[in-house]
């Protein structure tokens, strides 16, 4: 055993603090010594540091994540694998996962976002699925700061460059701005894949004798320590100096890797696969064997390198992109190499599964690592971090805006339309190929994306949703509301909610307040999922989203998959409203609450009060009635979410090119974002249908107005506030691009 491998950056005196420099605490270091009964070698320490990092081990979050409901008859693979897999009928399975690439995107927005896309795609094809669509959920600081514009345009450019070239369309997403994200943008990407039931592949190693074949790009010093350094520690001035570890994405290499892997699966040439993402080779060799209860020998001399003189710790920690580990029966290795060659992809035999239970790594014939596989994975530390309700919650809740008079409705609506987070996102999604594979029935710009399930009459509807303000004001209610909002979004195109993936973006978990926010959010998401009967099948946790001590808003993002059993043509769309159609409001009739609303933020710069919580019965009733109205071919369905009823109506008018007049009693009703409400627009002849469906389901509904004219008009007892449709349209169209000029 060598314990003195060369690390050019360190001299002897520094060895003692090496673990600290790698992000391990003294306690964790002691645990390693206790477990091994000796000091670890540098290479071993390198492996522990990345495998025990927050990003890989979920050490702060794991105890809470077990709260999620994860079971349902249609769940084939739940959380824990690279992606969740659910049965969507007629022999098809859907693989779904969401991942963050927040810190790398701050360091280098274009490459950070690009490699985030590459990473989540690998999680999907690792399962045997062909990746067919991406969604991006993005959060930045306000665009009036040049650095935020740089980050925003860089991230969108990176997603476009990678997603388009790798041949996976980006068909939807989400965008929000708040000061809290200025130095800590959030870049979450969700990927959907499809596979036949018989083609499912898992990340297991197979029995002893199985050969480990490394596929894809050569290994360089990219992202050394990315998992431990970038994703698991807080940000401050010095982080900009951590730049040498930036990874560069190669979508062409990934495209070839996808096709090579899918061909390997089709030919049944692999026992299991594991992608190389965070923690690189360390993770790819230890997780699969730990799942199967075996060990592995790895020969680092066989790992193709891009740069000379790479040390064992570097080889083990490198996060070079576009690599996969395949576990192959010894008789099939030649065939695997042949398939890889055809796709111009390197394939190298780097190891063999053993019965020992240990990960044994050697270089130049010398063993540099010999440790139990489980010690890297299942035995990683797990923390019950202290949590406590922040002292500021009571103050936040009582901090409400006191309105002395009704604000100018028209002005307020125009102000909302001009908000870059509420206006048109066309500038983003027109840079993304969102049509490839000819699946996109309802594309970006609607509540959910609707994809056909090729070869069947079925459709898949997906939506990503987040709301930092509401989650900040009440993380439990906020988390739950996101699940309900996402469910209602997929119901808007006629889908029944089927499965959830979540991306939990939070601040520093070592602060009790942040852990409290985290626990509350998990609780809220869990309660809503239970009420809805929808399991959580996967997710991702990103902690340490703080800069100079300021934590981001607690920012969970919910990805919802819904199923349409039989597509109707044409589906409900925002642009199908016509003059003389009636406008209905379906859902709760609660006293309106403006806490956390875009209205209060846009008009008063205010974020305070306590948002209304969700209601199970009303939640279910709105989701069910929306789905049935879609089946009944109601032309327009649109949920009321950020910006309230006023904005929802304006969006329909703008998309359809026709004005509307609606009546209201309390102006707050126009801007409140209380959950469980949607608009339906339908010809007079459909009045009976709407009445019948809503009565049967038991959901309140009200005819509030009529489409027509060239203005959006709000009428209270004859007093009218009108916004010219052309002005509204122009304001909405340019809300984002106006902020990007110079």
């Amino acid at each position, binding site marked *: 055993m060598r314990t003195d491998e060369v690390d050019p950056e360190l001299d002897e005196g520094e060895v003692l603090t090496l673990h600290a420099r790698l992000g391990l605490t003294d306690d964790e270091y002691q645990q390693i010594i206790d477990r091994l009964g000796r000091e670890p070698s540098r290479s071993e320490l390198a492996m522990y540091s990345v495998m025990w990092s927050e990003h890989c081990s979920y050490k702060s979050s794991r105890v809470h994540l077990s709260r999620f409901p994860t079971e349902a008859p249609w769940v084939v693979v739940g959380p824990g694998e690279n992606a969740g897999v659910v049965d969507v009928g007629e022999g098809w399975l859907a693989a779904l996962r969401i991942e963050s690439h927040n810190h790398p995107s701050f360091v280098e927005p274009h490459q950070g976002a690009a490699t985030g896309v590459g990473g989540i795609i690998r999680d999907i094809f690792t399962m045997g699925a062909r990746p067919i669509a991406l969604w991006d959920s993005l959060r930045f600081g306000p665009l009036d700061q040049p650095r935020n514009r740089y980050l925003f345009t860089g991230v969108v450019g990176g997603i476009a460059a990678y997603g388009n070239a790798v041949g996976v369309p980006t068909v939807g997403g989400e965008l929000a701005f708040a000061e809290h994200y200025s130095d800590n943008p959030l870049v979450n990407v969700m990927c959907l894949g499809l596979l036949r039931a018989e083609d499912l592949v898992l990340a297991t190693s197979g029995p002893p004798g199985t050969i480990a074949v490394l596929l894809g790009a050569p290994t360089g010093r990219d992202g050394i320590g990315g998992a431990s350094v970038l994703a698991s520690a807080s940000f401050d001035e010095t982080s900009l100096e951590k730049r040498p570890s930036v990874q560069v994405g*190669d979508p062409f290499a990934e495209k070839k890797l996808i096709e090579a892997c899918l061909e390997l699966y089709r030919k049944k040439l692999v026992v299991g696969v594991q992608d190389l993402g965070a923690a690189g080779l360390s993770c790819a060799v230890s997780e699969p064997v730990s799942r199967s209860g075996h060990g592995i020998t790895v020969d680092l001399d066989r790992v193709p390198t891009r740069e000379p003189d790479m040390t064992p710790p570097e080889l083990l920690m490198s996060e070079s992109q576009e690599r996969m580990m395949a576990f192959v029966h010894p008789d099939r290795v030649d065939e695997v190499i042949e398939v890889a060659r055809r796709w111009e992809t390197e394939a190298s035999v780097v190891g063999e599964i053993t019965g020992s239970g240990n990960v044994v790594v050697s270089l130049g014939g010398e063993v540099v690592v010999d440790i139990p596989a489980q010690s890297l994975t299942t035995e990683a530390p797990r923390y019950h971090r202290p949590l406590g309700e922040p002292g500021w919650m009571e103050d936040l809740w009582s901090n409400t805006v006191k309105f002395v008079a009704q604000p100018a409705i028209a002005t307020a609506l125009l102000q909302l339309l001009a908000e870059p987070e509420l206006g048109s996102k066309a500038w983003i999604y027109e840079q993304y190929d969102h049509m490839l594979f000819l699946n996109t029935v309802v594309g970006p710009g609607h509540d959910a994306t609707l994809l056909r399930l090729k070869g069947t009459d079925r459709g898949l509807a997906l939506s990503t949703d987040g709301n930092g303000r509401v989650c900040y004001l009440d993380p439990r209610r906020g988390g739950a509301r996101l699940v309900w909002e996402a469910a209602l979004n997929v119901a808007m195109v006629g889908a029944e909610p089927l499965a959830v993936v979540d991306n939990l973006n939070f601040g520093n978990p070592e602060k009790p307040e942040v852990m409290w926010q985290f626990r509350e959010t998990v609780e809220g998401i869990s309660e809503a999922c239970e009420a809805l009967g929808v399991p959580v099948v996967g997710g991702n946790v990103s902690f340490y989203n703080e800069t100079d001590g300021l934590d981001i808003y607690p920012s969970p993002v919910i990805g919802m998959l819904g199923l349409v059993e039989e597509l109707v043509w044409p589906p409900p769309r925002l642009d199908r409203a016509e003059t003389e159609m009636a406008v209905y409001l379906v859902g709760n009739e609660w006293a309106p609450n403006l806490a956390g609303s875009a209205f209060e933020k846009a008009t008063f710069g205010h974020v305070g009060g306590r948002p209304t919580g969700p209601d199970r019965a009303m939640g279910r009733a709105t989701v069910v009635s929306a789905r049935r109205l879609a089946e009944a071919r109601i032309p327009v369905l649109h949920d009321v979410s950020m910006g309230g009823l006023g904005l929802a109506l304006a969006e329909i008018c703008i998309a359809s090119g026709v004005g509307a007049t609606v009546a209201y009693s309390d102006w707050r009703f126009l801007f409140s974002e209380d959950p469980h409400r949607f608009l339906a627009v339908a010809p007079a002849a459909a009045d009976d249908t709407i009445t019948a469906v809503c009565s049967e389901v038991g959901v309140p509904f009200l005819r509030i107005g009529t489409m027509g004219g060239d203005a959006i008009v709000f009428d209270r007892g004859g007093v009218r506030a009108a916004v010219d449709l052309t002005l509204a349209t122009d304001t909405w169209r340019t809300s984002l691009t106006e902020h990007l000029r110079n």
Partner: protein
Amino acid sequence: MAITRRPEIADPEGATVKKALTDLGYNEVRTVRFDRAITLDIEEDDASRARDRAVEMCNRLLVNPVLEDYTVEVEA
């Protein structure tokens, strides 16, 4: 100004073109590197001031310091 990729940063384009050249029979090619060159026509008589301004432009906009290094040359 010549803008070069930092040596430790991966260059997928260079690697792909190297392969293409090898496929075409140019076996003597060991590495291929892609860099950028930006030529500015600047209205400024003082060469040293022109250089300072150009360096400033590189730092502020033209060069991505995470991935690239650069050199500036001034011609009259």
